[in-house]
């Protein structure tokens, strides 16, 4: 019986082998099915292994390979945390592979995707398994590299090239931040093993610095505002199943990194750390969802909503930090579990939604919602699962999104016990931000679903759409089922997460399994409890009751007629509410502040025949205030220095001479 970690490593090896296979068979036409089939099988195996070691609570298993840093070797470790994130990774991977089986057949240049897809999966698995700084960063950057190659798959679109560039630079920025953090953690001696780091003592200032660097490094990968700019560019640029992986899974790997360092390696946190993370998380959540609302490109919208969810997760982690710093183990465990639960949920429904978007993309060739509409008639199955995803991500019962939000709110409600006034005041405020984000998310996904799938088709392409292949549908339906199950049976998930909390926090939430009727009780029953199963049962019962009585005793007659157009029927679908007009009220409320949105109405005088025009200009302040000046500065300096390229030999000599004299002077003064 080989140890669990070894199994996982074997799976990774198999994935890398698949990469080689893909390169070898890039000519053959069967390679697509071959590669995705292989990755599907492998990820299922890995998933099974990870699930087993998470549920069965097999202790941490370790493995050292004679690669990586020579005197250290490459350490791998599979503990509860790693196991949980392996579950997330491989579940997403399996779903994406299954989806790819169908989706990949539409691919024009498969040889630009197939080799990198398994490599990307391998990278994510390895990051979670790595147990020393070098291996960790190596795999981390390898993951970025592979995903970059996937983003560049359709390299002919200039946008994608730009997206890939921004992505890779931001990724490298993040890596360097992590590198500094690990350098600080492992000290001048170079004790790069996580075990060594764990045992080492860290001064408060060091800890603070490391936390900041982790927020920069992991945050830039996860998409914390204002480091999120690459995300809405890169995620949509990749093929949809890769977008699903990047949004649903890779961001989680970043969160894994944050948890691993801040909760595991860094030792006991300080409550101020909690404050910082809370603020960042709350801000990210609200800003992310506002961007998403304003977006009319389906995949970009989903990417922005990822930013929102990341914000939610970080908020919850911040709560956990705050509680743990004050020694409230139970509350900390609650917040931490909530965060992990949301990680899981988001990986479910975000992958599902991206798959849906991909399905729409393949059958209509459109990502722009303003050109879609009415797809519910032509793609009924897709629209159904997409609806499930929308309900789930909008945190509505009885689906899974609500449960994690609910847990986070419960954690927020523990805040009065906190001794620090800052936290006492701030936690409810952040809770308000979360509530706002949740409500906005609901609005956002009403828009996403309503504009894309409801109403009448806004373009011939949408008119001609058809249902997608069965592989894609299988992938989407399985994820939708998972969303539903996790929603009605949250107790099982919480219990499965408890070893992770136990390992990271030192406490765990009370055992849920033996609560009556499978309901969940975060602290104690008198405080709060929720039972997804019963709520679902009630709703179905009530609804079917109503249906039964009405159809039994009242009329069931139906007549089709034209829609009421205020007296005159409007022939053109263009007269429907568009995405932009749908969010106009919300834009008026928040836009002026967040986007400096200005509306210009140009109404011709009576008798004037030219059409009236309405124009909104919005600004992405993060780009304009932060990134544009930076790039401009760099180019300015580059231009200035570039003049050194065109001097005469005499001037070059003078440079040498000047250097010589300076050094001699320094010497004369110094020694």
């Amino acid at each position, binding site marked *: 019986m080989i140890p669990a970690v070894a199994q996982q490593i074997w799976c990774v090896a198999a994935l890398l082998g698949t990469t080689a296979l893909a390169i070898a068979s890039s000519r053959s036409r069967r390679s697509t099915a071959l590669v995705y089939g292989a990755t599907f099988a492998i990820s299922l195996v890995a998933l099974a292994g990870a699930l087993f070691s998470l549920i069965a609570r097999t202790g941490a298993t370790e493995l050292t390979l004679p690669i990586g840093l020579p005197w250290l070797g490459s350490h791998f470790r599979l503990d509860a945390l790693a196991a949980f994130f392996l579950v997330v990774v491989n579940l997403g991977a399996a779903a994406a592979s299954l989806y790819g089986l169908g989706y990949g057949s539409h691919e024009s240049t498969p040889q630009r995707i197939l080799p990198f897809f398994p490599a990307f999966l391998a990278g994510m698995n390895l990051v979670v398994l790595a147990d020393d700084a070098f291996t960790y960063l190596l795999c981390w950057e390898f993951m970025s590299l592979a995903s970059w190659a996937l983003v560049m798959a359709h390299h*002919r679109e200039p946008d994608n090239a730009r997206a890939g560039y921004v992505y890779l630079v931001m990724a490298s920025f993040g890596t360097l931040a992590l590198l500094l953090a690990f350098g600080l953690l492992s000290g001048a001696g170079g004790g790069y093993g996580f075990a060594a780091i764990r045992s080492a003592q860290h001064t408060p200032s060091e800890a603070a610095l490391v936390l900041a660097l982790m927020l920069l490094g992991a945050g830039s990968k996860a998409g914390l505002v204002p480091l999120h700019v690459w995300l809405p560019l890169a995620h949509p640029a990749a093929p949809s199943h890769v977008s699903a992986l990047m949004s649903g899974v890779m961001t989680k790997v970043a969160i894994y990194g944050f948890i691993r360092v801040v909760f595991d390696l860094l030792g006991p946190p300080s409550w101020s750390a909690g404050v910082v993370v809370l603020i960042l998380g709350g801000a990210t959540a609200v800003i992310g969802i506002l961007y998403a609302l304003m977006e009319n490109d389906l995949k970009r919208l989903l990417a922005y909503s990822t930013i929102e969810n990341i914000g939610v997760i970080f908020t919850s982690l911040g709560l956990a930090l705050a509680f743990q710093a004050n020694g409230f183990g139970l509350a900390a465990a609650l917040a931490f579990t909530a965060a992990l639960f949301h990680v899981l949920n988001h990986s479910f429904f975000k992958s599902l939604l991206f798959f849906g978007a991909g399905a729409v993309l393949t059958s209509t060739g459109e990502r722009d919602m303003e050109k879609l509409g009415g797809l519910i008639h032509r793609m009924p199955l897709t629209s159904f699962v997409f609806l499930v995803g929308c309900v789930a991500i909008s945190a509505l019962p009885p689906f899974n999104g609500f449960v994690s939000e609910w847990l986070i709110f419960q954690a927020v409600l523990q805040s009065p016990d906190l001794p620090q006034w800052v936290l006492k005041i701030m936690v409810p405020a952040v809770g308000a931000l979360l509530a706002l984000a949740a409500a906005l998310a609901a609005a956002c996904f009403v828009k996403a679903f309503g504009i894309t799938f409801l109403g009448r088709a806004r373009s011939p392409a949408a008119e001609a759409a058809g249902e997608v292949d069965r592989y894609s549908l299988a992938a989407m339906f399985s994820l939708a089922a998972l969303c539903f199950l996790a929603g009605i049976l949250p107790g099982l998930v919480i219990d499965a997460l408890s070893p992770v909390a136990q390992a990271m926090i030192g406490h765990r939430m009370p055992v849920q399994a033996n609560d009556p009727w499978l309901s969940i009780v975060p602290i104690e029953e008198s405080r709060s409890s929720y039972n997804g199963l019963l709520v679902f049962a009630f709703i179905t019962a009530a609804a079917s009751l109503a249906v039964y009585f009405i159809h039994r005793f009242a009329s069931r007659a139906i007549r089709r007629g034209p829609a009421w157009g205020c007296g005159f029927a409007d022939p053109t679908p263009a007269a429907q509410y568009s995405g932009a007009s749908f969010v106009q009220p919300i834009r008026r409320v928040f836009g002026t502040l967040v986007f400096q949105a200005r509306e210009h109405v140009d109404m011709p005088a009576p008798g004037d025949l030219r059409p009236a025009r309405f124009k909104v200009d919005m600004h992405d302040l993060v780009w304009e205030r932060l990134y544009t000046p930076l790039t401009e500065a760099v180019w300015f300096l580059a231009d200035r220095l570039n003049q050194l*390229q065109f001097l005469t030999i005499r001037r070059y000599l003078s440079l*040498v001479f000047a250097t*010589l004299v300076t050094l001699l002077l320094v010497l004369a003064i110094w020694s």
Partner: protein
Amino acid sequence: MTAASDAVAWVLLIPICAAATLAALPGYRLTAGINILASLGTLLAALSLFVIERPQPGQYLLIDDLNIVFIVLNTFVGFTTSVFSASYIAHELETGRLTPGYLRFYHAMYQVMMFGMNLAFVSNNIGLMWVAVEIATLTTVLMVGIYRTHAALEAAWKYFILGSVGIALALFGTILVYMAALPVIGEGQDAMVWTVLISRAATFDPALLNVAFIFLLLGYGTKVGLAPLHAWLPDAHAEGPTPISAVLSGLLLNVALYAVLRFKILLAVNPDAISPGPLMVTMGLTSLLFAAFMLYRRRDIKRLFAYSSIEHMGIIVFAFGMGGPLANFAGLLHMVMHSLTKSGIFYAVGHIAQVKGTQRIANIRGLTETHPALGWSLVIGVVAIAGLPPLGIFMSEFLIVSSTFARQPLLAIPLVFGLLLAFGALILRLTSLAFGEPRGNAAPADASYLPMFAHFALVLTAGIYLPGPLVVWFQHVANLLG
């Protein structure tokens, strides 16, 4: 003579004899073949240095852990480059950029240069080392100018003038070292023999050593290409034949660096002398940042990578300046990796420039589509040189940055900043070179991929797995460097 000194002798004899024959022989195929064979022979001789026991350091020659790294690397890259240059030069002949006469000259000079560099490495005598470096420089000057275009001549001329000044400064430094050794060791040869110097350096006159080191640092630093002494480097790389660019970046810079290191050790031994670290760290950072900014405005593909060489030399010098086992190890590793990667890149670039018929970055696009092999090799190379895993340079940069930050955080900040800047520039160019709508000639290239792939394969392996003996030996050298 023992077998050992035989081996050493072979390392020097093969090139010089080959040079003589090549100068005499006509005909492209033959000369190219001989060139390859000679380089191979040299490589084998160098490799044999591992197995045989070391000779006693003599008046002139020395084999120790430090230089054996350099010699093997030198001869290896020399060999692969000779293979590459065979196919490259063939193409140059077809296009008529080179005439057979110059070709003969080229091959002869190539071997002379190899001789000079090897001599510089094995010499145990600081005077001899100086002479050897001068030989290597002058030969490369002649080869840079070989195309005889305005640009080439100008580059060669600039290289020549600046190089000569550098040589002069280095010589003055050498004389000063001798003067410092004079009272302690006494007149004559011994006062120039490295091994003797190092054994007695503790008692030398610190003031003289200080001045000496500054002159040596500038003199040899000119060849290393440290900003602001770098002026010759970009043009020389851009205008010379690509094999020469590969050798310049991959080897000549190392030769000069090696010299600097020797004297750094010497200085480190003397307690009263200034510590060379800060000087080297400063110059390293300057070069890194300067080159990083310069990368953004490059329009010529070869000049682009020339500047990236400056950048990496800056990193290496910085690492050695930091000192300490970790940083020194990283420095050595980085040097080896950079040599392999950069020369590999130049092989790719050479073929690309030939098939596209231009060196302007703007006229080359979508390589991965038109020439997959070349394009993806370029991608791998740039990714490697930019310090991304799983390739070798990542490991060294990891060690340098992390150890620096742990020891002197304030130094790590500009270092990281420079790395990020350079990264941004390189990837920016790579994106436009390798991706996007293809532009320019799409005819298949008749290239010799073998050297390129060999280099990248090595770099890739090293990025993931370093063989144990190699590591032990690197660590030993790292401790040697103090």
